[in-house]
């Protein structure tokens, strides 16, 4: 910098701050959000976890696990902001227990999930169906859309069961991959059919 004209280029000098070192902004944000969480200000905390079926976005309210999205967070966060609360922030600590149970599940050491679940994203009949699914179709078993409809006392509702599965906010933990077409055809899956096949094979429900 030239000392003779420097007072004239103050504006130029003001583009360069005098402190650049120190904790990075990311860790300051994390610390602030942990404090905010302690004050009850985080309505939805999320994290992205790598798994054998690809990255999963996990999100939890103070009540429990509210959403598992296949892939990265981009789409899921907008949905959570409009459906639950705009106070949506990355808060890995809130998902520690969920991550641990998923890791055990994917390692073949866990057959059912114990983490609390927040079912607020499912309403009405869809919620009834998803609750029946969690209750009645264990690891390694499958059921048809029609059978699941029957188990909710509504034997003609297989289409509604289909849409409940298609909109399941908490796949894997609420095991919609265990629901197949009558006769054993795979049907659909939000995470892609490859993922559905992977999960069913992993559970030993599908051979070959």
């Amino acid at each position, binding site marked *: 910098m030239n*000392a003779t004209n420097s007072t004239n280029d103050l504006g130029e000098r003001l583009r360069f*701050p*005098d402190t650049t070192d120190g904790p990075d902004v990311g860790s300051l944000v994390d610390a602030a959000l942990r404090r*905010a969480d302690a*004050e009850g200000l985080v309505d939805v905390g999320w994290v992205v976890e790598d798994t054998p079926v690809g990255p999963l976005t996990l999100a939890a309210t103070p009540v429990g696990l509210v959403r598992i999205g296949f892939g990265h967070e981009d789409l899921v966060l907008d949905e959570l902001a409009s459906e639950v*609360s705009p106070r949506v922030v990355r808060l890995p600590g809130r998902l520690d227990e969920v991550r641990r149970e998923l890791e055990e599940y994917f390692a073949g050491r866990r057959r059912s999930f114990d983490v609390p679940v927040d079912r607020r994203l499912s309403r009405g009949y869809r919620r009834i169906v998803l609750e029946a699914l969690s209750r009645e179709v264990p690891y390694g078993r499958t059921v048809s859309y029609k059978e699941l409809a029957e188990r909710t006392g509504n034997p003609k509702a297989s289409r509604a069961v289909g849409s409940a599965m298609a909109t399941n906010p908490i796949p894997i933990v609420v095991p919609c991959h265990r629901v197949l077409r009558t006769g054993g055809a795979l049907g659909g899956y939000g995470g892609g059919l490859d993922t559905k096949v992977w999960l069913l094979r992993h559970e030993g429900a599908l051979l070959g």
Partner: protein
Amino acid sequence: MLPPFQSLLDANASDLHRFLVAAVGRHDGDDLFQETVIAALRSYPGLRHADNLRGWLFTIAHRKVIDQARRRVRQAVPTADPPEVPELDGDAVVDAELWDAVRRLPPKQRSAVVQRYLLDRPYAEIAAVIGSSEDAARQNVRAGLQRLRQEVTR
């Protein structure tokens, strides 16, 4: 409809931190940064619309700078801060004298100057942040620069 608070952080956390460190120094800047994030998250759901969220966030930060300046006045201690030793940052000698002078500006001028030069913001946005008209924002930038010219010797 309000976007997830996360998207505000992704878009603005870095500039917010630069702004606060420029305005109050590294140590207090880190503290005010956390306070700003928490205060913003607290009042976020009460916002009626999603216009100019960046301006809203920096307004909160600007108020933190004002609060800190008031606390400083109340607790004023006669001992001077130890002079900062200029650090080498690549080839450039860090401009400690200039930034010390920035941090002695009245908060409105300080925020205006930092927003204008460090963050390259338009006057309309600076006006929103410091809660003034656009003319007053220009005035604050001019007055701040004038004072810096008087105080900075080289």
